[in-house]
């Protein structure tokens, strides 16, 4: 019962709620910029429409181009099933912890970048080159933040991490946790392609990073990749939330607890979305070669977080 519910809730959050988070962020961003903006439910309509459309496959593309959407989607969902969301119980905790999550996302990115190169257009190559560069530079910062939490919990297993975090509700005020969560927040912006690193709403190919790799995808393939990206965004957000601000996560099992846990997660997701939207609205997109400085700052924050475990 417990396992089945946990899997269902995870799948619900990953597959059903993830487009909603994106829709909410787009809507909030538009309101902050005093635009009307699309409705919150727009991502669902986009998915629905794309799944019904026909497809155009580039002549230059090989089987890799066709396999990529499935790999991107599967790796994101698989990684999502290893991140605690509503309770500290994670359905596929045995399959892997934070390292497996990071490397699975890397797997999806590897294929996405290959898919970009497979089109033979300059834009695809440009996107893959930039994506691989930025993600490589974001990796050490992410790892340091992850290590800080893993060392606190004495395990890389995310359900253990969450359990340790729940045990000490006010721990997120400790300097090491503040620094590590700041480091992870920067990585979150970089990994999900947000301003100031990448602009998810850009229409100019030359400034694109993530979107440039997808230029040649259409119809259901595009839908799968977009959906995968939303799932990835949601899982990184919950990873940040539940490693540092697990307040209200339930450790046992009850219907009431699950309901409050779910409500709290949605609330926290909304709050984090608002933070991201605020950053996006108040900042301009950086030049590509300024991004390494941002990520180096994030790395330094992570290193300081580790160092501060000596003091506190």
């Amino acid at each position, binding site marked *: 019962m417990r396992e089945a519910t946990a899997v269902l809730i995870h799948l619900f959050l990953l597959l059903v709620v993830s487009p909603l988070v994106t829709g909410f962020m787009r809507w909030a961003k538009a309101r902050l910029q005093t635009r009307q903006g699309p409705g919150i439910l727009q991502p669902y309509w986009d998915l629905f429409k794309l*799944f*019904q*459309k*026909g497809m155009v*496959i*580039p*002549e*230059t593309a*090989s089987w*890799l181009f066709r396999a990529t*959407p*499935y*790999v991107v*989607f*599967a*790796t994101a969902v*698989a990684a999502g099933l290893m991140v605690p969301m509503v309770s500290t119980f994670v359905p596929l905790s*045995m*399959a*892997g*912890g934070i*390292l*497996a999550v990071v*490397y699975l996302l*890397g*797997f999806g*990115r*590897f294929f996405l*970048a*290959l898919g970009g*190169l*497979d*089109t*033979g*257009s300059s834009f*695809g*190559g*440009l996107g*893959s*080159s*930039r994506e*691989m*560069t930025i993600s*490589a*530079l974001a*990796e*050490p910062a992410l*790892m340091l933040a992850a*290590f800080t939490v893993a*060392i606190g919990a*004495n395990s*890389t*297993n995310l359900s253990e991490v969450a359990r340790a975090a729940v045990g000490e509700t006010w721990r997120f005020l400790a300097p090491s946790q503040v620094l590590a969560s700041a480091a992870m927040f920067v990585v979150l912006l970089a990994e999900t392609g947000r301003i100031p690193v990448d602009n998810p709403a850009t229409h100019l190919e030359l400034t694109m990073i993530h979107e440039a790799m997808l*230029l040649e995808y259409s119809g259901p393939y595009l839908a799968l990749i977009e959906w995968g990206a939303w799932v990835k965004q949601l899982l990184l957000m919950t990873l940040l939330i539940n490693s540092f601000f697990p307040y209200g996560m339930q450790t046992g099992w009850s219907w009431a607890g699950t309901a409050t846990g779910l409500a709290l997660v949605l609330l926290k997701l909304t709050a984090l979305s608002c933070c991201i939207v605020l950053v996006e609205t108040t900042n301009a997109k950086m030049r*590509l*070669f300024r991004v390494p400085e941002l990520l180096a700052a994030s790395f330094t924050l992570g*290193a300081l977080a*580790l*160092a501060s475990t*000596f003091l506190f």
Partner: protein
Amino acid sequence: MRRPALAGRIAFGAGLAGGGMSLASCIGVLAGGSTVVLTLPSGVRLFAWGVRLDPLSALFGLALGVLAVAVSIYSWGYTRDSEIQSRVGLLGFFYNLLLLSLTLVFTASNVFFFLLVWEVMSLSAYCLVSFEHEKQETRKAGTLFLIMSHGGTGALLIAFLLLSTAAGSMNFADFHLLMERLPADQTNIILLLFLLGFGVKAGVIPLHLWLPAAHPVAPSNISALMSGIVIKAGIYGLARVLFDFSGAPALWVGMLVLGAGVVCGLMGVLYALMEHDLKRLLAYHSIENIGIILIGFGAALMFRSLGRANLAALALIAGLYHTLNHAIFKSLLFLGAGSVLKGAGTRNMEELGGLIRRMPATALYFLTGATAISGLPPLNGFISEWLTYQALLAGFGTTQSLTRLMFPLAGAMLALTAALAAACFVKAFGITFLALPRSEAAATAKEGNWFMKTGMALPALVCLGLGIGAGWFVRVFDPITEQALGVKVSVQLAAGSGLALSAGAGRGGMVSPSGLAAMLVILCALPAVLLALLRRGAPCRVGPSWDCGLPGLTAENEYTATAFSKPLRMIFATLYRPRREIQAEYEVSPYYPKAIRFESEIEQSFEKRLYGPLKERVLAAAGRVRAVQAGSIHAYLAYIFVALILLLLFGARA
């Protein structure tokens, strides 16, 4: 009368048989945990034809066996219909000599015998590297390899002699934990000499100079052996010295090895990113992976100094697992590069492209190797990197001093290295195999023959097996860690009856490669099946890529390898010191250039800043010493006389 076909069949058949036998005996030792010892007296004092196959030797022998089988099958096909075919007998001779000497290096139990086969290994490797000696590049690389390799052997000779003087014996068996009993400064000197000597063979930065020069110029089947297993002879030597001869060393030794590993990994991959010669790129990745292995070894040494035998075993397993993994996937990648070279006639990635259509099997195997080396789950590279991370993470709790920060920082650098490696292999695979061919040769490339495909399929399968079956495979390391550290940890490591790996008992992290594989298959299949069912008959057509309204995309519009690595070249400009030259010819206005010539290169810092001055000093010193060689027989007689007197005085004093 020459009969190359027969020569090839005999040579590579022998290699295949030898590899199979090596495989069988090593599996026997690893499964049984017993040591096979065989000693033939030679009649000469201090020297014996001693062979000892203990678990550590057996692990390296296992890697050698797998490679010998795969590469022998591959070579059979590779040498056919090629320019080497007429000299295949010679190639086969050195090939088998190299395999034999490697086997003996891994098993020799006597100092002199070890040094003898070590030399045979270096010399046969030299002959194989210089096999295509018509090219100047090859000759230069061969000479560099020979010189550096002998410098390393010199250091080894001194270290071994110091060690055997202390032991009063030449047998490896008497060296076990010997260094614990020696005075500290003597141990330090011996250890440093060993690190230097074996470091050259392993290609540790800054002793790596020969590696990216020598590995690409050898015939590709030989490159696979060189990068796969010959550099592992250095790793074997280090493992033998650090975990057999030496007891718990001083903490700084572990820190040195760990630091060297981090630097080696990062620099290796950064230089690899700038290469667009496919085989040179792979050679630089060998340096990177040696770094990852050393991170495991260094952590193991530090844990040993800190008295944590179980953790040391975990780190040692991580290092050795990566040694085995790298042997397999790197040889797979070199064999793939060999097929590309044979099929398309070039190793320059800027002239390749689109090979996935002309060479589908090679592309698939190369992709398998690329995903494995990038550490993507559930393949074998992920497992050993995962183990390394776990060891480093656990290291944080082993000490209260500031040293403990080294572990997570090394872990972060390992993450950077692995992510850059993934970027590099996106480039290597994407530019070589995807999109449109960039030259006529690539457009008409031919897929390798059946032997070559089988030779690549074998290591590809082993990559998958060592990944998914990691939970079962870790048991192999039990006899090794017991011999080296006195503990067995596979029971704690294997969880869920082998379906998963767990880092230490209880609450440590867990990963299940087979679970991940199953999950990925299901999650890929689900949308695929749904799409196939729901969209039956939906339009899906093939059309041109978006060309910005220009008339059609050609290969010239594609991203090149140089362009792909441009962002990293600019970000790490302090390291690379890139230089570029652009010449453009204009017709009417500067906005419409008629022709552009672009040239870009990076500075080879080690060559220029370290080895350049060193070479000049050595030459200057040699010039001064030349005065001694006057050409007069009287002077030479005087030298002999003086030397004799000095020796007599020395002997009388002793």
